[in-house]
């Protein structure tokens, strides 16, 4: 029991921090432009594919730097020549644009890399068990993932709150016109933030690719979960994104590791149903079975009872 709990916690931490790397960029972009970037997880996928292709020539470590930079530059270009153009037609058009972009990137990935799963692996140097607990190994690569994610959080927090650039960005979020009047190039700041946000998503893809497998559906798998996190945490709140990421990561990890379900609940209540009862599907549900839908349930509950999210200040 105890060992299950420990490993579920560690895995939840890995997933949660990974989700945070995506969510931090998404929430930053949202607070700047007021647009939820549907294609955010697609940049994460691009990061994994770029890193795979680069690592074929140079190995993992250069790819760790190069791939996120490439993704970030691509993101900035899309902001400059696509999103900024659509911005004139309103928020719905922007949302629809990023939605179409997600669709397009998935197809483009299939065009360039094919439909099959890519053999993108973690570097050999990290391919050893960091420690063994109750006979189970904890891979060093996962510890590396945790380390990178925490480093990103610290760096982001430092830049946003302690540096001049961060102060300008924060000011541009709330008072874009004033910042513009002070002589700062606000559209340029927007483009840079979009580039950094998508770059972060790309970095998440680089380090997640070897663990979560690199295939054309990887954006869809994570895409809506990241949305859920940003909304639950409160749109535009970095701390909220961190809390919600860890919450979702741990929630899913515990649900999958558990072995309880409706039958146990019914037993405990002393109720029993025939096997051919019309609602048998519901009476036989188990927690691991519904683990994938828990985030969405949480999302709907949060939106009904606290539409601004856990840490959010505004609704839309």
């Amino acid at each position, binding site marked *: 029991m105890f060992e299950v709990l420990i490993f579920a916690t560690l895995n939840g931490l890995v997933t949660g921090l990974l989700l945070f790397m995506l969510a931090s960029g998404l929430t930053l972009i949202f607070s700047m432009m007021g647009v939820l970037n549907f294609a955010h997880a697609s940049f994460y996928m691009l990061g994994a594919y770029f890193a795979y292709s680069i690592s074929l020539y140079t190995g993992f470590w250069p790819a760790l730097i190069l791939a996120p930079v490439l993704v970030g530059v691509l993101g900035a270009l899309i902001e400059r020549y696509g999103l900024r153009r659509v911005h004139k037609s309103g928020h719905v058009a922007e949302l629809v644009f990023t939605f179409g972009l997600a669709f397009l990137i998935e197809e483009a990935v299939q065009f360039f890399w094919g439909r099959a799963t890519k053999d993108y692996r973690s570097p050999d140097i990290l391919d050893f068990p960091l420690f063994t607990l109750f006979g189970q190994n904890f891979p060093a690569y996962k510890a590396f993932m945790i380390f990178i994610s925490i480093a990103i959080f610290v760096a982001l927090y430092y830049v946003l709150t302690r540096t001049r650039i961060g102060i300008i960005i924060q000011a541009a979020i709330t008072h874009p016109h004033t910042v513009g009047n002070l002589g700062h190039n606000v559209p340029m700041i927007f483009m840079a933030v979009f580039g950094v946000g998508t770059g972060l998503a790309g970095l998440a893809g680089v380090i997640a690719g070897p663990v979560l497998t690199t295939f054309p559906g990887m954006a869809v798998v994570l895409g809506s979960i990241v949305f859920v996190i940003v909304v639950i945490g409160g749109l535009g709140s970095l701390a909220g994104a961190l809390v919600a990421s860890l919450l979702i990561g741990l929630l899913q990890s515990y649900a999958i590791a558990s072995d309880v379900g409706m039958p146990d609940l019914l037993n405990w209540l002393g109720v029993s149903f025939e096997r051919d009862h019309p609602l048998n*599907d519901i009476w036989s549900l188990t927690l691991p079975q519904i683990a994938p839908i828990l985030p969405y349930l949480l999302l*709907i509950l949060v939106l009904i009872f606290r539409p601004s999210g856990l840490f959010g200040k505004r609704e839309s």
Partner: protein
Amino acid sequence: MFKYAVWIIFALVILLLPQLFSSLLGVSILNQMTIAIVFALSYNMLLGQGGMLSFGHAVYFGLGGFMAVHGLLGIEEGAYYFSVTLIPLVGGLFGLLAALFIGSFSTHKAGTVFAMISLGVGELVAASSLILVSFFGGEAGVSGDRTYGPTFFGYDFAQHLQVYYLAAAWMFVATLAMYLFTQTPAGRMANAVRDNPERAEFIGYSARRVRLISFVMAGFFAGIAGGLFAVNYEILTEQNLNAATSGNVLLMAYIGGLGFFIGPIVGAVVLTLVNSVLSHYTDLWMLYLGIMFVLTVMFLPNGLTGFLMMHRTPWHLGKMHLLVKPYILTAIPGAVFALSLLAMVEMAHSFEAEFVFLGATLNSEGALSWGILAAIALLSYVAVRRSLPRLREAWAQANTIDTGGPS
């Protein structure tokens, strides 16, 4: 009189279409189109008329469809006496109930909150459909048979053509009903709440209730579309209520044009055609569809219908002739540019060294084909760029009222 004439022409077109496209493929595409039209129009009740961006509209389509299949199964088992012609109504009513339940908590707010709830509900229902096997049939889905039950004046709907007339009749009625809904006070208020919910509240309307009415009606018509799908294909699977289907209907409505009642019809017809024709010729059709979608959002924010409607002013001013020549001068190099890019994409994708593209044999390994295509692309791009100033000038001229002359 014009009002009635439009609907009579619409009915005649629906009736005559299968005479023109009488092949099995033709009729099956027509069936697909009728279903898509109802679905896309119901989606526009939300987004175009009510200002509610939904990423989970397939939920009501799918739930209605699944209920309709269960209705078909009931007829087959003889559980009750019911005509297949009314099965779409079963789907519609179930879609309405589902929308009433979900709308009761999702229509408090429009905007991002509504969009996110619709996304969550969509994912939730799609995921649950794989868990609740007795209703959704798991991965395999649920299938029925439409030929049981009492015949309708001798028709048993075994043939695709008979199904077409059934679907077309439902489509006509549903389109008319949705159009009439836009003319009712409820439909008008939906527009008002979309544009300015605060003011609508000040006049005394509950923005939430107005949204709920639109939402429930949209669910009803989406359910009818799902019911038509059930009658036509006799099978429903998880794919009919997942995010891809929701995205597809958004695509149709947006490409067609959200601001016009006829927009989603145009979008549904064009996209169904593009899908079935393109997927016949190339397996990259999804890529092209994505490119088309993104370009539409970027350059035609009001969709295809919006593009046509832009010409109302030149038309009324009698200046359409000014536009003909500049249009041709831009369109021809534009088409050449698009085709040369298309050829290069196909060449890069092709597994065989040589293949035929529009009658020309291309060699994807030889530098000659690549060089020629790249040159064509470059030249046509330059030609497009050079023709644009003339086009802009002509457009400005066609949209100005001549002064000085007698009016």
